[in-house]
């Protein structure tokens, strides 16, 4: 019994320590974020941010687009197979448009970015830790949070919402393609119905979520990199852990945000 209590206690302290570390790191990153901004910050940091934006955003574009198109098509087909029975196939448009804008667009993007860039963040920082590059920064009176993390976080904050918007567009486009193929609904009419079904708050809730997901992915993945201890094997473990934890936390955060918006904004 004592052992069980001890294990539960240790595990609880471990989780609290992790949450505390993420929050401290997030706060430090917010304080250092100014250095990565254009015009007011350090131009080398801004250059690094742009570089990261290309890697997180532009390089992920084909993958995110394809995932969104597939999901949009699947959602439209599954929705149509049920709604057709009630003669309400027209509501597929609302389902795809609202579902993607509020939910699936940001979520698909976050999962793709978590897998691609989250693992890259953890591996890069973990390797820097193992090869003493982080120590090297500190002894040069440079803060790793400002030098390494701030450009990555700024890039994630900019690119994840942008990718989410593109993901929304691709998903809705796939829905339109399905409607055209199955009901011969013209693209112009589809677009009109989409614009009628989406409200500004749907777009805003989707963007708020994508900013939160960007924060989770960048902070958790970088923390996993900073927590690397030992040799190259621990870099591998931290990379896996970064993807697993950030994906898990993205889904938990999505549920929390959806509940908040459901109970506050809509009612």
């Amino acid at each position, binding site marked *: 019994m004592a052992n069980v209590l001890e294990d539960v206690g240790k595990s609880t302290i471990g989780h609290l320590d992790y949450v505390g570390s993420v929050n401290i790191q997030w706060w430090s990153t917010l304080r250092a974020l100014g250095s990565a901004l254009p015009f007011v910050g*350090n131009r080398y940091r801004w250059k690094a941010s742009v570089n990261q934006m290309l890697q997180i955003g532009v390089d992920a574009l084909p993958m995110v687009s394809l995932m969104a198109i597939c999901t949009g098509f699947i959602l439209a087909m599954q929705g149509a197979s049920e709604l057709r029975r009630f003669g309400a196939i027209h509501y597929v448009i609302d389902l795809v448009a609202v579902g993607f804008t509020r939910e699936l667009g940001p979520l698909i993007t976050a999962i793709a970015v978590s897998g691609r860039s989250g693992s890259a963040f953890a591996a890069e920082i973990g390797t820097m830790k193992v*090869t*003493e*590059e982080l120590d090297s920064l*500190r*002894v*040069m*009176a*440079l803060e790793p949070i400002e030098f390494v993390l701030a450009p990555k976080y700024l890039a994630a904050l900019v690119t994840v919402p942008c990718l989410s918007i593109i993901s929304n567009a691709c998903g809705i486009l796939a829905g339109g393609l399905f409607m055209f193929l199955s009901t011969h609904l013209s693209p112009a009419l589809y677009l009109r119905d989409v614009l009628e079904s989406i409200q500004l708050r749907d777009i805003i809730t989707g963007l708020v979520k994508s900013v939160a997901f960007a924060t989770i992915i960048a902070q958790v993945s970088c923390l996993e990199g900073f927590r690397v201890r030992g040799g190259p094997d621990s870099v591998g473990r931290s990379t896996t852990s970064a993807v697993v934890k950030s994906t898990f936390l993205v889904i938990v955060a999505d549920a929390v945000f959806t509940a908040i918006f459901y109970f506050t904004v809509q009612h």
Partner: protein
Amino acid sequence: MPLISIRDLVVEYDGHRVLDGLSLDIEHGETMVLLGGSGSGKSTLLRQILGLERPKAGSVIVKGIDITHCSPAELKKVRRSIGVAFQSAALFNSLSVEDNIALPMREHTRLAPSIIELMVWMKLAVVGLADFGKLHPQELSGGMKKRAAVARALALSPEILVLDEPSAGLDPIVAAELDELILLLKEVFEVTVIVVTHELPSAFRIADRIAMLYKGKFRAVGTKDEIEASQDPRVRQFLDRIPDEIAKTPAVAAYFERYLQGQEAQA
């Protein structure tokens, strides 16, 4: 007043004492070699001198500032006067050699890019790498990486130059070249040099004074001649390269005895 003053320094990891009440003064302009076997605590002591870790007790005073209790701003100020070349060189693989060396200048000075370029070339020329600035660290040999790390350590013309195992993993000729480089740098730039090594020829070539560490304590501190004349059994063992009689220690003997008994019982 000494440039660096270490007083009663105690460092523990998970209750295991790694440095046990060390005291040492390092004067302006001298080359102090921290000598000792693997696990003797030399690298730990170096990390304390660089303010990378906090001790359990004691103080490390660098240029009049106790870096174990100072503010982050004071620590940064102290670090700007220290140039460090790590054992693994710790060059940033994503940057070219010249960008690695330019990094501290770009971050801490307001020099024009053309001046920084010129200074980088000068630092590279000093270490004999003037023609290799455009290469990336992964394209350099082990010895060239170490020299590039020394060039980066010299970037801000530091008062203190710290070299962690500069000749480890290098062939005797390259190691000897590096020793001559250290002597040259000391003469030209009038820096205080701290070298961590376990290479005897290198230590006796470059040192003004040697501090010999054994199991977290200084066994001897003195000039080269004093160390060479030392009759301390551990110092003599290290200098005369006498191996420990591992097989004769009681623990190992008992293990072999148990193993043989087990074999007999099986037979």
